[in-house]
């Protein structure tokens, strides 16, 4: 015999799970950014300050590159546009729906993490103002996860693995960059909204679970796509890759 309050709670649970699942099913296909106004202001400020040193470093590198090789001025702009447009590629997910790659893994391999931290952040600003996705106050948090942590993870993996196996290095760099972006996003949300009873860990599990369902297959898809893309680049644009230094010390 189920008592009345617990029956009510059970009904409530089923209702919320149904709502959550139906939302997951209708999820539009885009990278997950923290929307404008979602973070309380102390956290928004905190992530801006966390990202600032990387921006300063990235801009310094940019200025240096342009002074050294003035012709990179146009190339960097076009490369930035390429990373932005890359997120419009159709990427099939194992779950059936289609989605878009983040492109941060490939960007870090081609241009390095310093330049990516700037270019990725500008791309995020464009996403906020051109497709109303993301935000201005949350730009710091989104840039930290997508333009700083993602590229750094990709760059590190790429540097460690490229001498052993090229395809594995590309795959892991892209997949782990994608995955780490979402882990960081989940942590950022959990820090801002810890669970009332189970605290940060509980909140991390909640936000993580919501994203993990779609993100783990997506990370694998992005990894596979990036391997294919890199192979195609080697045959179509080998000279460009070489001038970027992306083919140095590879297996």
């Amino acid at each position: 015999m189920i008592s009345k309050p617990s029956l009510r709670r059970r009904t409530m649970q089923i209702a919320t799970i149904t709502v959550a699942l139906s939302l997951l099913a209708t999820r539009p296909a885009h990278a997950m950014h923290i929307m404008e106004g979602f973070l309380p202001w102390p956290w928004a400020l905190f992530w801006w300050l966390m990202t600032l040193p990387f921006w300063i470093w990235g801009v310094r590198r940019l200025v240096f590159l342009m002074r050294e090789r003035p012709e990179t001025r146009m190339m960097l702009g076009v490369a930035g546009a390429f990373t932005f447009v890359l997120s419009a590629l159709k990427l099939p997910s194992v779950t059936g729906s289609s989605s878009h790659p983040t492109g941060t893994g490939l960007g870090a391999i081609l241009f390095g993490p310093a330049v990516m931290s700037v270019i990725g952040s500008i791309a995020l600003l464009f996403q906020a103002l051109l497709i109303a996705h993301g935000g201005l106050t949350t730009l710091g948090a989104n840039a930290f996860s997508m333009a700083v942590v993602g590229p750094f993870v990709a760059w590190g993996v790429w540097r460690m693995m490229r001498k052993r196996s090229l395809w594995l290095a590309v795959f892991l760099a892209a997949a782990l960059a994608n995955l780490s972006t979402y882990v960081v996003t989940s942590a950022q949300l959990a820090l801002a909204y810890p669970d009332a009873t189970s605290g940060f860990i509980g909140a991390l599990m909640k936000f993580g679970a919501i994203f993990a369902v779609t993100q783990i297959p997506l990370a694998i898809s992005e990894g596979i796509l990036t391997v294919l893309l890199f192979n195609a680049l080697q045959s179509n644009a080998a000279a460009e890759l070489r001038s970027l230094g992306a083919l140095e010390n590879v297996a």
Partner: protein
Amino acid sequence: MHRLDAYAHASRLRHVHPLNKFAFALTVIALCLVLDRPAVSAAALLWMAGLSLLWGGATPGFVLRLLAAEGLFLALGVVAVAVQIGPVGQGGGWSATVTPASLAQAGALLLRAFACASAMNFLALTTPILELAAAAQRFRAPAALLDVTLMMYRSVFLLLETLMRMQRAQESRNGYASWSATMRSAAALGSQLFAASWRSGQRMEMALQARGYEGGALPMLTPAYTLSRTWPAVACLVLATLLGLACL
């Protein structure tokens, strides 16, 4: 994306200085975040959506569509805030519960995020990025950064056009018929796009050098900004309403 940009260029508020609009939208967002009251958020949502529609000249359907797209993403995060999980009893089992307090928090959060999003949409609907970036020169933003931003803006639309054309060509040849075909097509598309964008960058660089370009900010035409009396008055009225609602 094209439509949002088109609205920004055609906006009736384009004569207002971009930094003016930027500061206004950011102040509204900051007030919503710092005051964090449902009444303030509701007022900001109505004001900003209203201004985009009635003064900015956007259509109601488009403004609603932007908010609906943002709402879908928000809903996911809000559900996680509304549902609380934790250990129950001595058995060590975990359960998910919804309490009135958590529901209220989630509701207030949803409203606040909608208000901030509509303030951001107001900026996006009335101010082209190009002008915003050019206006940032005043703050001594590094020229290298501005150049890259402006180049990116110009290239994004060209590249997207190329991407769409390539994608349509692939689709018409059953390029996205199966999982493996989609992967192959996407990879071919990405690499061709990279090569195409690289070459267009090189051509642009060559064309500029042929015209004596030696670095530095690219000159661009900006419209003449005028300071009407109505704009500051309305901006002050909006901010006063929000502050007034917070004092109530």
